[in-house]
């Protein structure tokens, strides 16, 4: 047998290490490159938008930026460099360099005077720290409103309030409302979803299904449908509608009402009661079943 290693030149350790490093870094990029078309395009353009050449802050604007940053009548807002950077579409480090006179836009004496004037007026870093404190930025991050965002937990009292809130209005059981609650209480969306579905120690005695059904009846009203054949169907909630749809599809089975709810919600949630949405694609399937049942009966 021929020796496969006879004249084979192995890659050097350096080559392998380099390849390993590259492969490790670009793993996420590789996945994104496969599926994310916009990522693909932006990668090819070096992160710039379509048709855009490399972004630069015009040299003519350097002085304007320095003045905006240092020559002020009021104390400058936090992260002003980021705001300016966003205006030019560059990284904030670029702006940092400009405002620190790294590019020698102004003479040293002129620049020092400017900085001194600002600091005499508004103070240095400690004043900024005070501002942070005053605006409650750090507190907001640390504590959220009632709940610590870092901990991502909901207290017992809050859980009861959140649960009740979700049943308090017509749109209370929607995704959008959960998002609002998540923002309000400074926790993740998943936490809120858990709470409104009764997954919290404080809510162990709640009958979520019954509550949802009551909410349905109270706010979502009666669903009335007239099939193309002219036959009228009436449901007082999405459960019943879902159950009926399920049965038209599969016959009478012992499936749980949770699935019935899913079916009804999938096709009819966020539609106004008493209105027929036959034109929307997502409801066609429901009407197909209705047609079938009309033919059969």
């Amino acid at each position, binding site marked *: 047998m021929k020796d*496969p290693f006879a004249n084979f030149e*192995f*890659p050097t350790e350096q080559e392998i290490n380099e390849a390993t490093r590259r492969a490790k870094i670009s793993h996420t990029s590789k996945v994104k490159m496969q599926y994310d078309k916009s990522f693909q395009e932006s990668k090819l353009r070096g992160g710039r938008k379509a048709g855009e050449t490399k972004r630069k802050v015009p040299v003519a604007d350097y002085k304007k930026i320095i003045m905006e940053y240092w020559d002020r009548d009021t104390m400058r807002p936090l992260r002003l460099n980021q705001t300016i950077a966003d205006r030019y579409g560059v990284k904030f480090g670029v702006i940092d360099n400009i405002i620190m006179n790294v590019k020698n836009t102004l003479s040293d004496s002129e620049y020092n005077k400017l900085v001194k004037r600002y600091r005499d007026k508004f103070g240095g870093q400690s004043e900024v720290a005070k501002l942070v404190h005053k605006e409650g930025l750090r507190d907001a991050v640390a504590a959220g409103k009632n709940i610590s965002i870092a901990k991502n937990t909901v207290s017992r009292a809050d859980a009861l309030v959140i649960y009740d809130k979700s049943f308090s209005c017509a749109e209370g059981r929607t995704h959008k409302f959960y998002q609002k609650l998540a923002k309000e209480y400074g926790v993740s969306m998943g936490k809120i979803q858990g709470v409104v579905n009764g997954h919290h120690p404080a809510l162990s005695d709640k009958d979520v299904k019954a509550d949802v059904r009551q909410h349905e009846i109270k706010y979502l009203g009666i669903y009335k449908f007239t099939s193309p054949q002219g036959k009228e169907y009436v449901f007082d909630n999405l459960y019943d509608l879902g159950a009926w749809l399920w049965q038209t599809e599969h016959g009478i089975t012992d499936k749980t009402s949770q699935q019935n709810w899913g079916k009804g919600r999938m096709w009819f949630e966020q539609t106004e009661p008493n209105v027929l949405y036959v034109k929307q694609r997502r409801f066609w399937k429901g009407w197909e079943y209705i047609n079938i049942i009309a033919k059969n009966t």
Partner: protein
Amino acid sequence: MAIKFNSNIQNAYLGQGKIRQDTLTELAKDALSINKKLVEATRHSIFSGAPGVGKTWTFTLLIKQHKLRFVIITAGMSEIEITSRLAYGRANLKKGEELIILVDDADDVVFDNIKSLNRWKIATADIDPYWSYPKDISTTIIKAEKSKNFGLAKALKSFRTAGSLGLDIPLDRARVIILCNTDLEDEKALSKKMFSSAEAVIDRFKYERLEMPWQEKWGWLAHVLSNSQPFEEDYGVVLDDLQKKELLNFLYTNWINLKSRHGASYRFVQKLAEEQVNNPDDYLDRWARMVK
């Protein structure tokens, strides 16, 4: 055909050398599983001994004679080279065959540091032994394919694990034989940390320490040389008995003056023979330069 020396002592050591060689061959046959045994507590073995006791020579000879499937790993091979050789050897293993992994001069390859020692521990573990290479393998595969070395590329690809850069080679059908110079039972020879780790390694190997006085070493070399032709296979050059006798006599009288601390090895004998064949006029001068 045996050579007869003028000195009776030399002849006696020549006889000893034959006995030594026979013992070593038996041990090596056991290690290589040529002698079929009913039961085997451990497959792997370590042979430790100073240069010149015939470790490498015996094993390579037996492997060639019995046409065993083998991989030789020596000091100085890079990690990727070792991995490639193992992958190629393992991939081309036929049903019922075992892969002999002969680690020659293992002092650097295995017993250099804890990291390399641990890799060989995993490779010789009782349960699920494997050789793992965590770095990028695609560079090597591409190089192999470019140089039309498709066998190697195929072997490397076959052990690639999904979602990782490198490869894992299962070594459940491998028999590792480690040849080294260091006495692993000597505390002074290894660092303290290495010594305790090496103990665990010795435990899972058959450990054989080969030691002999210099006269016996000479006897072994004399026996081997008198029964073999170092350059016949490759160059078709045959040494006659007179030449061999002269060489061995030179070695016997100059053994104390040898530059190597451990005495001569078979490789040194080959070097002497090389001078003898290439420079028939002044080989004695050249030999004199090869000793102190």
